């Protein structure tokens, strides 16, 4: 009988492999058409942009040509903006972003999971989050500037608050959606509350936590740029604001494109991490 079973499991394994191949094949095929479509979208955006500027429908101060933006980009890359290298501007912005995200993750995840797990913790925290979450971050930013000054600290606190809510909410909902049988089976296997929290609830919530982190990143990033536009003396957002004061529209374009590309790269990085850390996602 043992032999029979062994054969069976081998067959089963082959079956799974076969199904996997089938799925992957389909995946790569659709990926290819979709990638072409994405590429075509961007190509047409650039072509339309080029044609509009070529026909001189608007003055170059309002809509600079792609070439002008490209030249301005090269110039800024070489000489910086306002004698400060572009890397410093970008670096300042990213530092604010990541410091805030770091603290948000390390406070929102445990608090969110605990809130989902213990209704009493939720009773303490939840209403505060619900109150400030719908507020536009810039509404309380002025207050933060008064308290923490115009430099990095006020921005980090602002971004921290902006990033905290989405992660916290994702964690609460992750615990709510948790497969109760995971917890029950762990209890029946002899796990205590602490083990269940760290070894079952936390990993089981990881997929949602990561979605929360990606949302938080998006919110924090937009908040960052707006905050730098309101009050700052450096950063990529400030660069755009400063350029608009002098009607240097090509610099505004360069700034916006850099912001966009940075955002896409960071999100891709987060997605890569997600795939590595939560390798089981969607496979249960």
């Amino acid at each position, binding site marked *: *009988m*043992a032999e*029979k*079973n*062994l054969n*069976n*499991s081998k067959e*089963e*394994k082959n*079956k*799974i492999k076969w199904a996997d191949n089938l799925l992957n094949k389909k995946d790569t095929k659709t990926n290819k058409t979709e990638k072409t479509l994405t590429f075509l979208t961007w190509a047409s955006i650039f072509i339309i942009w080029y044609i509009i500027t070529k026909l001189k429908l608007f003055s170059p101060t309002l809509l600079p040509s792609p070439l002008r933006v490209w030249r301005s980009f090269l110039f800024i890359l070489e000489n910086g903006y306002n004698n400060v290298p572009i890397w410093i501007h970008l670096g300042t912005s990213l530092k604010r972003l990541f410091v805030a995200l770091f603290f948000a993750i390390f406070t929102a995840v445990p608090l969110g999971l605990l809130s989902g797990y213990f209704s009493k913790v939720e009773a303490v925290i939840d209403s505060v989050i619900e109150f400030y979450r719908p507020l536009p971050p810039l509404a309380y930013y002025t207050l933060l500037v008064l308290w923490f000054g115009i430099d990095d600290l006020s921005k980090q606190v602002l971004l921290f608050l902006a990033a905290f809510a989405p992660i916290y909410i994702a964690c609460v909902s992750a615990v709510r959606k948790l*497969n109760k*049988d*995971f917890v*029950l*089976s*762990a*209890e*029946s*296997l*002899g*796990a*205590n509350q602490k*083990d269940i929290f760290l*070894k*079952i609830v936390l*990993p*089981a919530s*990881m997929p949602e936590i990561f979605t929360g982190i990606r949302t938080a990143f998006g919110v924090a990033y937009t908040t960052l740029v707006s905050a730098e536009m309101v009050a700052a003396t450096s950063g990529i957002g400030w660069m755009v604001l400063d350029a608009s004061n002098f009607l240097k529209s090509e610099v505004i374009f360069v700034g916006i494109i850099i912001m966009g590309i940075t955002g896409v790269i960071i999100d891709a990085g987060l997605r890569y991490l997600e795939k590595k850390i*939560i*390798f*089981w996602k969607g*496979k*249960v």
Partner: protein
Amino acid sequence: MNTKSKNEVLIKIKDMSVVYGKENQSLIALKDINLEIKRGEFICVLGPSGCGKSTLLKTIAGYLKPTSGECLMQGKKITGPDWHRGVIFQSPTLYPWMSVKDNVEFGPKMRGLPNKKIKKIRKYFLEEVNLSGIEDQYTFELSGGMKQRVALARVLANYPQVVLMDEPFGALDALTRDNMQNLIRNIWMENKTTIFFITHDVDEALSLGTRVIVLSKQPGVILKKFDIDFTKRILKNNSKNVVYQDDYFKVKNEILDIIHNQIE
């Protein structure tokens, strides 16, 4: 655990009722249940769906508290889940972020056993369920039958006094199911496990259990208990031929009659 007397009563349920909900919207799931589970028994619980089979299992596991009456384990009231009563769910609750090895070792690790012993236990039980050599795979890479075998190994690794199984093979195809039934019968015999097994398949109950309990539909009452020995005959003859014998059919028909009367 083999040294203890064979007829020791492990689980004793006295006049137990379980009611869901509050007064005017209440639902009596189980009523006046009296049941003893003795060491080494293989008890199968049969009944139409919605008859409170799972509720009975959950109260023994400690997930639910009886509304009235008592549920005792070795004389002590069951107050919550613990590792002496292992539970196997219908859909295996293996942890997808852990490898097969870590899943099976979870129980012994939680109980703080020494590493050497944990490794030995894991090896032994993966062999028992015919799954040696897949320790490092993840559970989502396995088929339904293999998953349920890992779940079985994980529960057995704690050497529980009773294994509670809630329609464990319900989601498997017929062939895999047959294999699993042979597997669980052999494991039960070899390890002298005590098993409480819920199913809605009369043949499964008759070919596995030493005792079959038939529950009625709402409120769940024990209608009849059958002491049977088909599973031992299957083990002895190494064949399932007993299912073609008259006494098997007689019991089977009696059970089917009881259940059909319930449904109509």
